[in-house]
């Protein structure tokens, strides 16, 4: 009963939002060059951030799942820091880091502050934590026994990971990528603080909603929000179909 009420509540929320803008205005808004650019940048930056998050999450998740060592609980908690930090604080931390000596050296090679690379980094920092958690859960559910047997059959530790653990974890990898992607799509605070909200440059869809709301263009804000809802549903369907359980 409570579940049904909760689902109905969400259907009403989305229904009300969906009926706020007419299809004509929706298409008109989505055809504007600024919003098309923001959509394109969101797709590219989310995919890039999720890809990097997965590249980090697989070895870190595997290590955290398979190894026991002193201080593991502390390291585990440290990996979750981006999840519990307020988003604006994440952005502020990034901004301050790139003012330090180390940050300035990195900036000389790849400029991050107020650039598209900064958008990707801000999305990556938070998304990676979710991807790591998902991959760790995936490897926790997979027995280490087949990898042990692979070692006796001639594998190195890396070959056992590559030939045995990773194929078995492929569904978890898809889920981790999708979760990182969806999380990146909704990221707003760190991007606003670290990469800015410059139209046709660092503007992504959540920034568009905020920019349109701030000038009172509710119709555009609603249209973009609906586009994001649609994208989130597509990702959710992919996660459900591939199955989070391995």
């Amino acid at each position, binding site marked *: 009963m409570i579940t049904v009420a909760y689902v109905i509540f969400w259907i009403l929320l989305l229904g009300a939002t969906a009926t706020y803008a007419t299809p004509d205005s929706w298409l008109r808004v989505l055809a504007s060059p600024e919003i098309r650019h923001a959509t394109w940048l969101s797709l590219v930056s989310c995919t890039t951030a999720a890809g990097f998050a997965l590249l980090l999450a697989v070895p870190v998740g595997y290590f955290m799942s398979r190894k026991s060592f002193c201080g593991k609980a502390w390291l585990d908690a440290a990996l979750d820091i981006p999840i519990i930090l307020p988003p604006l604080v994440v952005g502020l931390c990034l901004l301050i880091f790139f003012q330090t000596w180390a940050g300035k050296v990195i900036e000389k090679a790849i400029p991050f502050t107020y650039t598209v690379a900064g958008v990707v980094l801000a999305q990556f920092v938070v998304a990676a934590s979710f991807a790591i958690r998902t991959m760790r859960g995936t490897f926790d559910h997979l027995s280490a026994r*087949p990898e*042990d047997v*692979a*070692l*006796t059959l*001639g594998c*190195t530790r890396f070959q056992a990971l590559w*030939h045995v653990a990773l*194929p078995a974890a492929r569904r978890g990898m898809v889920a981790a990528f999708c979760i990182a992607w969806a999380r990146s799509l909704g990221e707003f605070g760190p991007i606003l603080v670290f990469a800015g909200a410059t139209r046709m440059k660092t503007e992504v869809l959540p920034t568009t909603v905020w920019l349109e709301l701030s000038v009172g263009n509710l119709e555009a804000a609603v249209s973009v929000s609906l586009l994001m809802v649609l994208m989130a549903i597509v990702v959710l369907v992919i996660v459900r179909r591939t199955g989070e359980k391995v």
Partner: protein
Amino acid sequence: MIQLEHITWSADGRVILDDLMLTIASGTYAVLMGSTGCGKTTLLEVLCGLRRPQKGRVLIDGCDVTSLEPRERGIGYVPQDLALFPTLKVYDQIAFALKLRGLTAAARVRELADELVISHLLDRQTETLSGGEKQRVAIARALAASPKFLLLDEPLSALDEAMRGEAAAMLQRIQQQHQLTVLHVTHSQAEATQLADLQLRFERGRVEPVFRPF
């Protein structure tokens, strides 16, 4: 020949292997018995290199292999849960070790499949197999690496009474055909009596010979 010299292993303050000594001569079918949770699996893992002992040495044919990786020991291992690779078909399970070594797999896989009567299963995913079929696939997979030693952790425990006798006969045939030194872990005295050249009992972290028929 397998020799364990003064092997010690403890975890969480509990001594599991306590200055353990063991010698198994080449070509012997040794059966190790002991109560549940006494450390038989730990012993097998120390032997095949999955655990490094805190003290002591593992010798294979007189060479100290204590610091060698599992892949360098020439020991085949069939764990109790069989640990078949979840994404591979039966053919690829058996071909796994051969492909790793860059060898042509097809002929050897067919040969092993014929020997273990699983030729008709080569295209199957392992989750569709029965317990007995899975067990034979796991043994074929281990044999494909041409080990000199084979460690079997309760290989017959998942089989029903009717299949056990047949499976035990198969293990004996394999040992003789491949000239293997086998260490077989079980709870069953009947299994030990049927198979063992050397019966061993694991108690309080140590292994003692029970019976040596000659």
